């Protein structure tokens, strides 16, 4: 037992050292610890937090890989290197090594920076407060590269991650204690600090910003427009994509959020493994559909004319809202974060519904930045404890009533 016992001995020898959590993080990554139960239950179920988090990461991997292909595809398409892929998800023009490689070299650095900076901060705080490195960041670190535009400068990402982890999580006491979803805190920071990098029609296609700068410098090139469907709709223009393109995700957007199909599969996987809350996912979709229907109703009853700046998004068919933008990704991976979501089952229904409802509301009424999911989830994160409070109070009231019946 070479490695096993030498790691164990090393750990025993350095029991009191300040840096032990850093070592433990690696040690427990390799080996399930030898900890045994003491009092209470003498046996324990098989899952731990690492396994839970790992399952979420597994669900995200297809989105990540698809995101690489799509990044390359959008790049080549915009630069006129290839023709639009026909045949959708099965198109051979989409799944090319060339597309993958372009995306790979853009996405992997995002992943490395996200994990590198985030874990460094986590380990620092673990050593400072002498506790173990907790697993929360494993998921956050993977989420972050999936929800940013492909060309986000790495230094910007590093700054945002540092902000998100410290302000979004560590100041509250770390994993399990935070109020806001850390990944969304990171994205919100990027959005408010560097708005030009997070919206508009250039950032979603790799190379578009760069070419724009070259044009500005006087070079004679065609400008590239790669705006998202939401952006197009917000300006009241016609969408040039088929519904199936939106479903497959062969459209511009943040790295991992475009493919509704893969996100749907990931959602089903998370529900099957009992890691993700189906209540939140379902109620959030219902909330979005209800809001979509309301807007469709407003349009069809003629309360709003085509000249209105809200017309484009309001007249979008209600169920298209589930396919476009970051809605699906936010619902499956962000809204279901158990720490920041409502914790009671009844609360989850309310929480999810409101996320869906408000997402579409913000989406329509905020054409300058037509993506409401991030803000809706952050808003509901803040209200989740309130929702829980009233749900729990319901149970408490039932108890109090019981007492009165008895004593009366």
């Amino acid at each position: 037992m070479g490695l096993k016992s030498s790691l164990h001995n090393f750990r025993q020898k350095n029991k009191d050292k300040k840096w032990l959590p850093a070592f433990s993080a690696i040690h427990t990554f390799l080996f399930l610890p030898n900890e045994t139960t003491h009092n209470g239950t003498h046996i324990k179920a098989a899952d731990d937090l690492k396994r839970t988090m790992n399952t979420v990461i597994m669900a995200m991997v297809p989105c990540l890989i698809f995101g690489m292909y799509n990044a390359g595809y959008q790049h080549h398409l915009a630069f006129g290197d290839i023709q639009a892929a026909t045949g959708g998800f099965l198109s051979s023009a989409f799944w090319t090594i060339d597309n993958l490689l372009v995306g790979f070299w853009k996405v992997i650095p995002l992943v490395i920076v996200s994990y590198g900076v985030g874990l460094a901060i986590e380990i620092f705080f673990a050593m400072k407060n002498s506790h173990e490195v907790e697993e929360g960041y494993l998921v956050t670190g993977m989420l972050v590269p999936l929800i940013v535009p492909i060309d986000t400068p790495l230094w910007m990402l590093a700054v945002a991650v540092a902000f998100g982890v410290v302000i979004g999580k560590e100041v509250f006491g770390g994993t399990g204690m935070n109020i806001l979803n850390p990944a969304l805190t990171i994205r919100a920071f990027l959005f408010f600090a560097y708005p030009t990098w997070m919206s508009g029609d250039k950032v979603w296609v790799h190379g578009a910003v760069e070419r724009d700068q070259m044009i500005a410098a006087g070079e004679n090139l065609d400008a590239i427009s790669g705006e998202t469907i939401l952006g197009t709709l917000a300006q009241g223009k016609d969408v040039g994509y088929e519904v199936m393109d939106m479903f497959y995700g062969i459209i511009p957007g943040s790295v991992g959020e475009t493919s509704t199909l893969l996100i749907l599969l990931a959602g089903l996987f998370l529900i099957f493994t009992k890691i993700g809350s189906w209540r939140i996912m379902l109620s959030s979709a219902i909330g979005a559909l209800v809001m979509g229907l309301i807007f469709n109703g407003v349009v069809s009853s003629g309360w709003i004319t085509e000249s209105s700046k809200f017309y484009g998004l309001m007249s979008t068919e209600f169920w298209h809202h589930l396919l476009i933008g970051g809605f699906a990704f936010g619902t499956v991976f962000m809204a279901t974060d158990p720490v920041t979501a409502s914790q009671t089952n009844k609360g989850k229904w309310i929480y999810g519904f409101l996320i869906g409802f408000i997402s579409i509301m913000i989406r329509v009424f905020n054409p300058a930045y037509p993506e409401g999911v991030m803000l809706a989830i952050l808003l509901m994160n803040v209200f989740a404890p309130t929702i829980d409070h009233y749900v729990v109070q319901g149970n408490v009231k039932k108890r109090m009533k019981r007492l009165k019946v008895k004593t009366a």
Partner: protein
Amino acid sequence: MSKDIKIKKGLDIKLVGEAEKSVEQAIISNFCTIRPEDFHSVIPKLIAKEGATLKAGDVIFYDKSNEDVKFVSPVSGTVIEVLRGPKRRIDAVKIQADKPQSYKDFGKFNTSSDAKTTKAHLLASGCWPFIKQRPYDVIANPEKSPKSIFISGYATAPLTADLDFVLQGKEAELQAAVSALSKLTEGQVHIGVGSKNSPLANMSDATIHNVSGPHPAGNVGTHINRIDPVNKGEVVWTVNAQDLVVIGELLLTGKFNAERIVALAGSSVKKPRYFKTLIGSEVATMVYDNGVDKDGNDRIISGNVLSGKQLKPDGSLGYYDNVISVIPEGDDYELFGWNKPVFNKISTSRALTFSWLTPKKKFALNTNTNGEHRAFVVTGSYEKVFPLDMYPMQLLKACMYEDLDEMEALGMYEVAPEDFALTEFICVSKQPHQDIIRKGLDLMLKEIG
């Protein structure tokens, strides 16, 4: 009258090593040890000093805060050692047993006596500690009168002694005890049974409830929550079914006979079966002479694997226990144990764990925690195994931040640590739920009383 209890939430943990239904006479242990820590929150005042000779039924110590509550010796013999901990706390009283046992005679009890006499008799004879109360899960306060008394005749925890089997042929004793107890409450004695064959199924002076469903269907806490939940200011009492036999025999014969049929179970036991032994006897003879490897790396537990107490090999059977569980220690590292597919452990999730594919399979679990202690992260999982009408996670958190009002509102009066055994078992963050609840109850006991 029968009011049935059916629960759906819960989890049956199927383990290897269930005791075979045959009873053996355990080699009579020479030593009997009584540990005051079995009687939570009792501060013992010692009567039987070192060297004292006792009959079975003689008082060893009483409760300092209530002198009427006496604790008696299960055997006759000589007190050879009083083990003390820090601040001269009494940790254990060790008695060397006489070969032929002699019993103190409490006299045959007239079962038609009134409540006051019955109570006095139970207190004087040392049977009172068998009666526990909720709230707080401590020995019942004899000055209060309970609104009802609960007895569970159905054990659903993993590897516990089958009460139908253990109580066979003890109907007379059980009936005597139930009738006596029924005098002590204005309400009723509620007995939960798992089947019609239960020796408790035909008791008079009691309401019988047929109980079905996964563990914790047999926990008395589940019955209380369903039948007659405890509100602020109310008290219910609970008695373990096997302790009724001791009470019953005392009432019928005047003898305090601490004999008990105990299951020796667990995957480390070669031939798991039942033994006839006494409360407090040393378990070593039973465990080692009959099937556990002497140099094996095993854990011996007095009680079931969910809420029992760890014993050293020279330890003794707990006052309230009727099962000794022996399972392997899990103090080893497992390569990539946190993410590789798991087939040999139980899980309620399906995150690369496959116990859901084989619901009938029995598992040999060890004591490894399968992960490290973390803050609460996952939500909604406890509710699936927690049949009580309350919010388990919110209650645990209230205990952790010691908010008495909230604990009270969320249902703390109804629960005992064992009700949180399943949530502790499945807890992904490996939080010590039972410990948190125990500390919370202690705090309430101290602050509210």
